[in-house]
């Protein structure tokens, strides 16, 4: 029988299993039940003979500790950060920590004791740090209690360091490994009653630990979903209607029937066709040779030009879909001493994860299994259930780290539906791996929404901004993926970064007369979250225009911003940090110019400076960027720097090259020859300045991307004397001033 030592039995909140975002593109599941019926509280099994202490930690006899990870790892380093936080409270030897990835099936069977597995919105650490740390503390308390019981001393007399428990008075010590088995017999304390360590006392968290998941990325042994091998597995290549909304009319199967390795041509839903063969290359070769007739539908009439017209209509619309209003901006601007206005725009972008879309499915007697890269394991489970028609308990998702995610692989489980449809067409028990070619991956993304933005500002005689007006017109992510997020026609998500409310994405300026409006203009192109969702476009619009206004006011870019930020000390502190490290106001080599920007998203404050030059031939070079970030607590400074560097690569690449053009209703840029990606030679020297204030938990993966483009564009403005208002830069002629 378990002995209750801490007065409280573990009680975990019964959360409903709701996979909200899957309900949109994934074909819909919102479940509020326990599909397995009544199951005991502790459905988790101990791993490999270790002792399970609470739900997050397993301790082995050699004192090595296995820390369980619920969130997906796609390169962002969450796995290591979460392990650090748990290990910190656990008090174990960091060198003996390994991790175990949880599956959604285990989570569901245990009534979701491990919480939400969704990994997006830069929430992996900030939304799990509290229960993760408590989980580590639970295990520590059990281990200490076991030692105290053994020595018959008070638990309060014990100390622990690196997994060694010491009773100083009697000069005794033991290890976690030695007391783990006894500890596992105790009932875990109530996590909610535990007092966590102060971050200033951290020794594992807050330190630049090496990642725990590097070794198998160096020798080819890491198995991504695209690498899965199963006995008897077949391979599928797929093509969906290149025009969004188009339908499959007919295919001439006979033309490819005799091609090597071909097993079957499968119509997938009403809009795609797949070829199944013994290898993927043969499947793809046959698919490329397959005559396909599409019913392209209305979408085929759309092009960049028609979409631009459509967006333009939003600038003049009287009805809007979200606004923020203070005072009377129109009147203030009309009566201002000086008026500035400009229109900016940003294009559709694909995510272009290095691992292309893929999904392996095996359907056998009453069971469905899938292997895929996913940022939301639970949405994948729900998607597998919907697509296969089998209850959740008969579905299984195999967990793989992702070769990139960037927002592409969240709730939208389009690939799982396709892969299930293909597997259904094959004999039961045959695993089929569907891989999208790069071209298919580029053609069928949930793209970064397109938008244009018209802004005007009024300056008084002293050059103070007395009025600011913005009209944003563009596509809505909620309209595509989460209609419930649009309340009475208002979709405030598209105004991310311009909010008045603090905490998440607050505008850092105070303007006496402010009018920010969003006009929804949807197109037939599917859109979705893209690293730095909405804030990367909105940051660019605001910060580039503020630069124009500062220049019109004849003021220094930094001082002009500062003058509007006294009510936003955190925004200001980060701006100051970037300015200081970026040597704002100090001389630069001839021909090199600086830009600056600040913005907030994902609960964190970001600012950047950029140093660029434009050659007499118009060639742009970004030399150096300094990015400052206040993410509240800095769990792993080295990985934060890695994410900041990553945001520069992603954001600067988009600034220079990123554009998904639409012609005849379909995407034009289907591979990296025209959808150019930033490479090493163009990567500037990036310096990360982390200025944590230790009073909140902010995100890391996304926040800094929103200042990358504006800092660079503002530096280009300084170099050329002309603002760049449309992205990408690649086709524009830059002329050094």
């Amino acid at each position, binding site marked *: 029988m378990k002995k209750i030592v801490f007065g409280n039995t573990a009680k975990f909140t019964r959360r409903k299993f709701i996979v909200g975002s899957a309900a949109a593109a994934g074909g819909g599941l919102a479940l509020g039940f326990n599909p397995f019926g009544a199951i005991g509280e502790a459905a988790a099994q101990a791993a490999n003979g270790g002792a399970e202490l609470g739900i997050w930690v397993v301790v082995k006899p050699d004192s090595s500790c296995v820390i369980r990870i619920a969130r997906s790892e796609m*390169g962002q380093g969450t796995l290591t950060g979460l392990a650090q936080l748990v290990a910190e409270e656990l008090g174990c030897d960091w060198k003996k920590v390994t991790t175990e990835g949880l599956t959604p099936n285990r989570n569901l069977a245990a009534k979701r004791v491990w919480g939400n597995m969704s990994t997006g919105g830069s929430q992996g650490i900030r939304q799990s740090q509290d229960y993760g740390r408590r989980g580590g503390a639970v295990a520590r308390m059990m281990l200490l209690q076991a030692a105290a019981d053994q020595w018959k001393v008070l638990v309060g007399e014990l100390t622990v360091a690196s997994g060694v428990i010491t009773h100083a008075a009697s000069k005794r010590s033991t290890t976690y490994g030695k007391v783990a088995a006894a500890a596992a017999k105790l009932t875990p304390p109530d996590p909610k009653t535990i007092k966590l360590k102060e971050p200033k006392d951290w020794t594992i968290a807050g330190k630049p630990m*090496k990642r725990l998941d590097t070794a198998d990325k160096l020798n080819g042994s890491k198995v991504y979903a695209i690498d899965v091998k199963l006995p008897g597995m077949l*391979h599928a290549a797929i093509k969906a209607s290149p025009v969004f909304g188009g339908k499959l009319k007919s295919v001439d199967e006979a033309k490819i029937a005799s091609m090597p390795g071909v097993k079957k041509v499968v119509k997938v839903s009403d809009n795609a066709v797949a070829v199944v063969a013994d290898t993927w*290359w043969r499947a793809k*070769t046959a698919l490329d040779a397959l005559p396909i007739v599409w019913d392209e539908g209305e979408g085929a009439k759309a092009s960049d030009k028609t979409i631009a017209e459509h967006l333009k209509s939003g600038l003049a619309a009287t009805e809007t879909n979200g606004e923020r209003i203070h005072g009377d901006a129109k009147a203030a601007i009309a009566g201002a001493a000086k008026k500035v206005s400009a229109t900016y725009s940003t294009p559709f972008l694909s995510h272009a994860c290095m691992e292309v879309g893929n999904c392996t499915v095996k359907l056998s007697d009453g069971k469905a299994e899938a292997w895929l890269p996913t940022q939301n394991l639970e949405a994948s489970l729900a998607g597998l259930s919907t697509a296969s028609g089998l209850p959740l308990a008969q579905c299984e998702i195999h967990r793989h780290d992702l070769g990139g995610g960037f927002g592409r692989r969240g709730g939208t489980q389009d690939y799982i539906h396709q892969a299930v449809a293909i597997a259904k067409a094959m004999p039961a028990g045959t695993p089929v791996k569907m891989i999208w070619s790069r071209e298919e991956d580029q053609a069928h993304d949930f793209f970064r929404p397109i938008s244009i933005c018209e802004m005007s500002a009024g300056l008084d005689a002293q050059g103070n901004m007395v009025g600011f007006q913005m009209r944003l017109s563009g596509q809505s992510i909620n309209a595509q993926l989460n209609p419930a997020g649009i309340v009475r026609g208002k979709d405030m998500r598209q105004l991310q970064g311009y909010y008045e409310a603090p905490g998440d994405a607050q505008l850092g300026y105070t303007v006496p007369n402010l009018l920010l409006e969003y006009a929804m203009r949807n197109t037939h192109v599917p859109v979705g979250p893209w690293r730095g969702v909405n804030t990367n476009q909105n940051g660019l619009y605001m910060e580039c225009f503020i630069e124009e206004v500062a220049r019109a006011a004849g003021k220094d870019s930094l001082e002009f911003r500062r003058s509007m930020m006294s009510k936003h000390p955190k925004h200001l502190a980060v701006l100051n940090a970037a300015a200081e490290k970026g040597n704002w106001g100090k001389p630069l080599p001839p021909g090199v110019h600086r830009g600056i920007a600040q913005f907030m998203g994902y609960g964190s404050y970001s600012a950047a400076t950029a140093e660029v030059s434009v050659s007499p031939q118009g060639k742009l070079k970004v030399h150096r960027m300094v990015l400052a970030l206040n993410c509240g607590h800095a769990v792993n400074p080295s990985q934060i720097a890695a994410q900041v560097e990553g945001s520069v690569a992603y954001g600067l690449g988009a600034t220079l090259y990123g554009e998904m053009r639409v012609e005849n209703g379909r995407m034009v840029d289907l591979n990296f020859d025209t959808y150019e990606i930033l490479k*090493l030679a163009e990567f500037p020297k990036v310096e990360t300045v982390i200025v944590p204030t230790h009073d909140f938990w902010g995100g890391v993966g996304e926040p800094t991307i929103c200042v990358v483009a504006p800092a660079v564009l503002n530096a280009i403005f300084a170099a050329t004397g002309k603002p760049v208002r449309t992205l990408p830069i690649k086709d524009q002629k830059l002329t050094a001033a």
Partner: protein
Amino acid sequence: MPKLNINGRIRDVQVEPDTPLLWAIREQVGLTGTKYGCGVAQCGACSVHINGELQRSCSMRVSDVKPSDKIVTIEGLSRNSSHPVQKAWLAVDVPQCGYCQSGQIMAAVSLLKKNPKPTDKDIDEAMTNICRCGTYQRVREAVHMAAGNGNGTRARSADRASRRS
């Protein structure tokens, strides 16, 4: 039936001669460390060495390779990840998602073989692999480290990430 010499072993591959070497390596030989990224020689994820030369295997046909040509993939680079480039990659903590890293490492090994002390400019020119996660700064640093150029010409990102409270 075409024969390939991969990592010192002769392999029979049952494929059409115009099959890209990449897919023969991944699907016939079963070595999946070599990655598909673009299929059109743009990204470098599929990089291997053939007779010591860096090649993008997605854009070579199996018939372009003779049985006597020595192909080395990431799996054949060393035992126990002991190649100096792999060690430097570990020391600098280069990978994020890791998907592009086989190719990055193969490219770096090739660069250092030809040019044991590359400058930043040499690295710019040689390391043209795409990394969507943006590990470029650490790739550069790790190449310098593997070359024995001190700890790289730049300070470690981690050390630079100054923390103030």
